[in-house]
């Protein structure tokens, strides 16, 4: 089963890509009073380049990089005239939400800029949701066991995932990082966002899904890195789009709103979107909540067979939400011929999914994944199918946790948008759409973002993720990510610490 790694694959370089806005948002504010004598000591001690000397004057130009009290050489302490005051940035506290608290946003922005983890001052591992991944911690042995035959360089550590484990006629596909981009449709995000994600995926040797809004021609050069989605509305799905790609994803449900269909507001159906989906400009578009042609597992098998009839070499991924019988759904998908079972938990979703659905319907992903993993193992088919988890994967630590719970890899969504400087304002669907030009189809707003900038930001973030994952593996004494799959013993849950 095991395939040798593609020797042609080369990790892309991280390139520093600062914020596209003039005043990037940081955790702290540094105030420089009129007392400043321009001695330049602050600029000299600051490890992060917060202070800049220009024409004899010292200015705070990169306040967003200030790590505040965590700084080893605080500038406000070395200032001979006490001209500097450090204060928390009040704007910062208002950002995000419990799942994506401001520190997580800022640390993701840092990764997207520098392709490294933030140095200090920011919690980049967990959010404040008081549940889910935020209650789980990786348990590292002390001291780190180390493995004598572990690769010396990070480049040689194996964090890739084989996607076709059935050994059938379909493509042999391996992704070099344990994540790929989840579906975001053309119409819900701008073409620049879509292309940035797909180009980043191509550079990283992984994939990105189109969502259900069609397959724009701009994506053609990246066909080998595109997953096309066949969702309940069948928008933009044609034989041609199915034949073009290596992976076809069936979307039965979304973890953020299982049992609900999609509805794209009339305002978002611009001429471009309407052309892509072949609908009417200005009219709302509906996706039904079920596949009308699939009401049972044998219908599902027929559905998978259909895709294989159109593109015999395609890998079939089945994306489902996490109902209580998700284990049965998974094994049913396996017997229907799927290569990938994609479990979409309920933590995902940005502003558009209704809260009532997001918070009340599906099972949390950290319960669903071990259930499926265990059940497939019991059935003796776990090594024949790839388990991908998604829905609220925000950090490399989330990735490690869900893999330890039994997934093989993950799908990302919101994190990509955060790399593009989404501030989680939850207004994706209002008015002309995203004020930051990410989730919009408004031509003017779309102009807020440059394609190369977007691509590099996402590449940077994922390079940082990869580094962090490798660091985690080393601390666990593992050589490959595969070893981590299903290792729940590497996790602790904060609520059950005493009993252990």
């Amino acid at each position, binding site marked *: 089963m095991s395939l040798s790694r593609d020797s042609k694959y080369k990790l892309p370089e991280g390139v520093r890509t600062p914020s596209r806005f003039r005043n990037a948002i940081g955790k702290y504010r540094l105030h420089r009073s009129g007392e400043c004598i321009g001695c330049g000591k602050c600029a000299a001690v600051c490890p992060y380049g917060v202070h800049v000397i220009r024409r004899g004057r010292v200015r705070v130009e990169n306040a967003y990089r200030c790590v505040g009290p965590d700084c080893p050489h605080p500038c406000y302490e070395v200032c001979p005239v006490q001209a500097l005051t450090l204060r928390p940035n009040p704007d910062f506290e208002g950002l995000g939400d419990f799942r994506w608290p401001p520190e997580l946003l800022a640390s993701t922005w840092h990764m997207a800029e520098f392709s490294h983890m933030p140095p200090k001052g920011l919690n980049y591992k967990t959010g404040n949701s008081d549940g889910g991944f935020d209650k789980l911690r990786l348990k590292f042995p002390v001291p780190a066991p180390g493995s004598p035959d572990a690769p010396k360089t990070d480049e040689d550590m194996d964090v890739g995932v084989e996607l076709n484990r059935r050994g059938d006629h379909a493509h042999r596909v391996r992704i070099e990082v344990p994540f790929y981009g989840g*579906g975001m*449709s053309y119409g*819900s995000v701008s073409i620049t966002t879509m292309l940035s994600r797909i180009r980043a995926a191509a550079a990283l040797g992984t994939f990105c899904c189109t*969502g259900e809004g069609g397959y724009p021609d701009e994506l053609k050069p990246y066909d080998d890195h595109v997953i096309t989605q066949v*969702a*309940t*509305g*069948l*928008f933009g799905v*044609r*034989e*041609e789009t199915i034949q073009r790609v290596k992976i076809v994803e069936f*979307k039965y449900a*979304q973890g*953020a709103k299982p049992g*609900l269909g*999609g*509805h*794209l*507001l*009339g305002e978002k159906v611009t001429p471009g979107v309407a052309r892509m989906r*072949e*609908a*009417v400009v200005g*009219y*709302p*578009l*509906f*996706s*039904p909540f079920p596949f*009308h*042609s699939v*009401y*049972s*597992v*044998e*219908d*599902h*098998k*027929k559905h998978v*067979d*259909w895709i294989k*009839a*159109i593109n*015999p070499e395609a890998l079939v991924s089945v994306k489902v939400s996490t109902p209580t019988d998700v*284990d*049965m759904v998974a*094994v*049913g998908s396996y*017997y229907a011929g799927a290569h990938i079972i994609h479990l979409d938990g309920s933590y995902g*979703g*940005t502003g*558009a*999914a*209704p809260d009532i659905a997001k918070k009340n319907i599906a099972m949390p992903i950290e319960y669903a994944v071990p259930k499926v993993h265990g059940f497939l193992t*019991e059935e003796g088919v776990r090594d024949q199918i790839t388990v991908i988890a*998604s*829905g609220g994967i925000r950090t490399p630590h989330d990735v490690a946790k869900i893999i330890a719970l039994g997934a093989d890899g993950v799908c990302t*969504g*919101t994190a990509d948008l955060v790399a593009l400087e989404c501030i989680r304002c939850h207004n994706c669907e209002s008015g002309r759409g995203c004020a930051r030009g990410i989730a919009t189809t408004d031509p003017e707003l779309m102009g807020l973002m440059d394609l190369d900038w977007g691509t590099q930001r996402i590449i940077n973030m994922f390079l940082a993720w990869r580094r962090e994952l490798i660091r985690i593996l080393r601390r666990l004494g593992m050589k490959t990510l595969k070893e981590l799959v299903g290792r729940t013993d590497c996790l602790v849950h904060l609520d059950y610490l005493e009993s252990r």
Partner: protein
Amino acid sequence: MKQYTHIDDIITSRAPLVQGLPKTVYPGVEAEGGCGVTGFACSIPVRGKHIFEPSRQMHNRGNGRGGGIAAMGFDPHMLGVSEAILEDDYILQIAALEEGVMDDLEARFIDPFLSVDFSERIPHVEDHRDIEGLEVRPPEVFRYFIRVKPEALQEFVSQNHLEGLSPRQAEDEFIYQNSFRINRTYYDATGSQKAFVLSHGRNFFILKIVGYAEQVVQYYKLDNFKAHIWIAHQRYPTKGRVWHPAGAHPFVGLNEALVHNGDFANYHAVAEYLRQKNLYPLFLTDTEVSALLFDLYSRTYGYPLECVIEALAPTMERDFDQLPEAKQGLYRAIQATHIHGSPDGPWFFIIARNDTQNRRLQLIGITDTAMLRPQVFALHEGQVQVGLICSEKQAIDATLKSLAAEDPRVGDVADRYWNARGGSHTDGGAFIFNLEESGAGPLERTLTCTDKFGREITGPADQIPYLPGRVYYLVDSEEKDRFDISEFFHLQRPDLLHDYVKAGIRAWDYADLMDCFKEIRGWASKGDAHFEVALSALTLLLDRRYPTYDKRRRSILQMLNHTLEVILRHFPSLSREDVKSTYRLVDWETRQFFRGPTHDEKVLIIDAALFPPEGDHCDSRLLAEAFHRGWRRFIVFGLKGQRFHGCGLGPDSGGVRIDIYGSSGDYLGSGMDGLSIHVHGDAQDQLGQIMKSGRMVVYGDVGQTFLYGAKGGEVYVMGNAAGRPLINAVGRPRVVINGTCLDYLGESFMAGDPYAGGGFVILNGIGFNDQGGVEPLPAPYPGSNLFSLASGGAVYVRDPHKTIDEQQLNGGEIVPMEERDWNLILPYLRENERLFEIRVETDLLQVNGEPRSPLTIYRKVRPGQAQAEEMEKDGLTEWTEG
């Protein structure tokens, strides 16, 4: 009032049975999806081998982890008992899973209470491994013909105060309770499993295994065993590595065997409801619950069948309002009492029932209110009558073919095929085939068919089917060359040949007709040009409707099919290097010789008969490959439900034409983009899904979710569409449906502005009578939902009597036809006329013989303007991370 006490008494008497069982039903229900179900009832007993072929063809609806059959209505001699015993005794059939368990079981549950008139261990193949693919050894089965001992029954009655019941009712109840005790003692779904009761009703039995349904027939040697009714089920369970035969269908109440395709969303609610009636499922499937429900309503409550069906599949919405007032009162009462026990979600039941009270056997098909599962009914009238119910039409065809091969009185085409409209006022979503006693003994019964309301469905009256055994005399003047058809071939005029045969049917008898076809067959082998004439003419005869006078259409179709198959099989296969022909044949045996066309080869004929229905080796994959190798014209015949034809050709398939003969399968032309497909006969489910462009013509009906998510193309359907046609269609599909639809036509239709290139549907609401004449249907669209939530496109309905009302629309609006609407649709109706001979002037634009303006005959439904605004405000937006 008295009757209520009996019901209460029965329910109370069951209380001890469920004592000690957990209050809520064990949560770990075995998941299974839909499955393959098939069943037929025949006026004479027929061999088990006839359930074999349809079961085998529905393999892809099961996964070999549960198969079962039920047989009902026997020849007493085949079971070794007298007619009286067969009639009066219960057939208790027990599956023993452990050696030696039967001694204990007999001592505890049979000997003390039951008098056994006859018993046997039923024969089976010595070693199950001799049957290919049968991995798990089926259970040993013991059969007892039993009555309850009078003293035991007496005690049972007095102990439970069941004096109000008739002795037979009391005995029925005793048998039920005794079997429940046996199951509780020897079978624990989550623990030890030693034995269980397969069935215990009168004049029928059930067998089930871990395997495929047809392996039941093989293993228990039922090939030659005869019964009036056979039903079979292919199961598709998805949980657990070890499956158990007890979980396979059919399930039994008392005198009924039930198979089920689908699954309930409310299993626990229904189980809870049954718990209140002291009924408790022991085998962890929703099918068992269904059988218990049916038995509760029919035997305990004593409801007539119509009310049982209403309790299971309630009539809703507009359909309810359309019922007569008295019926509304009755149904309202049933719904109020039993709605908690009504299964919710996709389901379809086939039930074999011994209606002992009315001394008849029944085969019943009931579909759920939302019509979420595929189902086809068929009726074959003649000397031998057959009623059939299946998940797919190809299973019906397979059954008839198998029957016809053995008994020439059965044809391989049925007189009528139809779908049921679940929970409707039109047919109630259920059909019943009754086998009444004809007075000629148990081997000769009369079959009748009714819908839920008792309205009868009959075959064409006054038309005689072809009987091969009958002697047709050649009149003296008739000579060998009595068919003067040579000029049609010389002139290359298939249309004239078609007219000639059509005109001849009136005077000819079947023998003449056959000779004529034979003559045509002879000409067809005289070179490609002649073949083309023959093929076109025969195809026209197959496709069109015309008067058949005293002859049955099904018999003529049977002859045509046969003639066509012979002609098509005659072509040189690709394995032969020595011949030249424009037409080349490929079949399963010669597929290895498959290659691209040489310069003079134009048409690839695919004999699909032995190809698997899907997967890497199916014939549709071969067809796609052939397309990529350069073939452009295809004729596919001999189909047995093979799927996916016309899929995988991609967007450069303009100019390609595929002609489909035989029982085509699901997903035909799904994804087609440019090519044209002609289906000579009925098409199946998921036809033309996501179709982008091209042309499809169906000379028959189409199944569920026709053109789901279509983007364009032109489609003509001669007959009806089942449920959910054109859901979520966008772009510019233009469709003519000459019949009607079950429901949900054009839901979320988003096909732009018809005047500016957008899409639309023309629904003519017409049918054909038995002489091929066009007749308007009682209502062009009886469904409760038309064009719901649509945001673009239009539906044009031929509705001269204004039967479509606001209540059917959810967001759409009816607007007057304008001249430009008529100009828009007329070209499509003209093409429709050319294809199907449905004349615009005389068939469509006349009402009761009077010509009328199209603007008063057609009505237009378009998205409501108010609706569009309302939808804008709705809070649900498509989310992205998805």
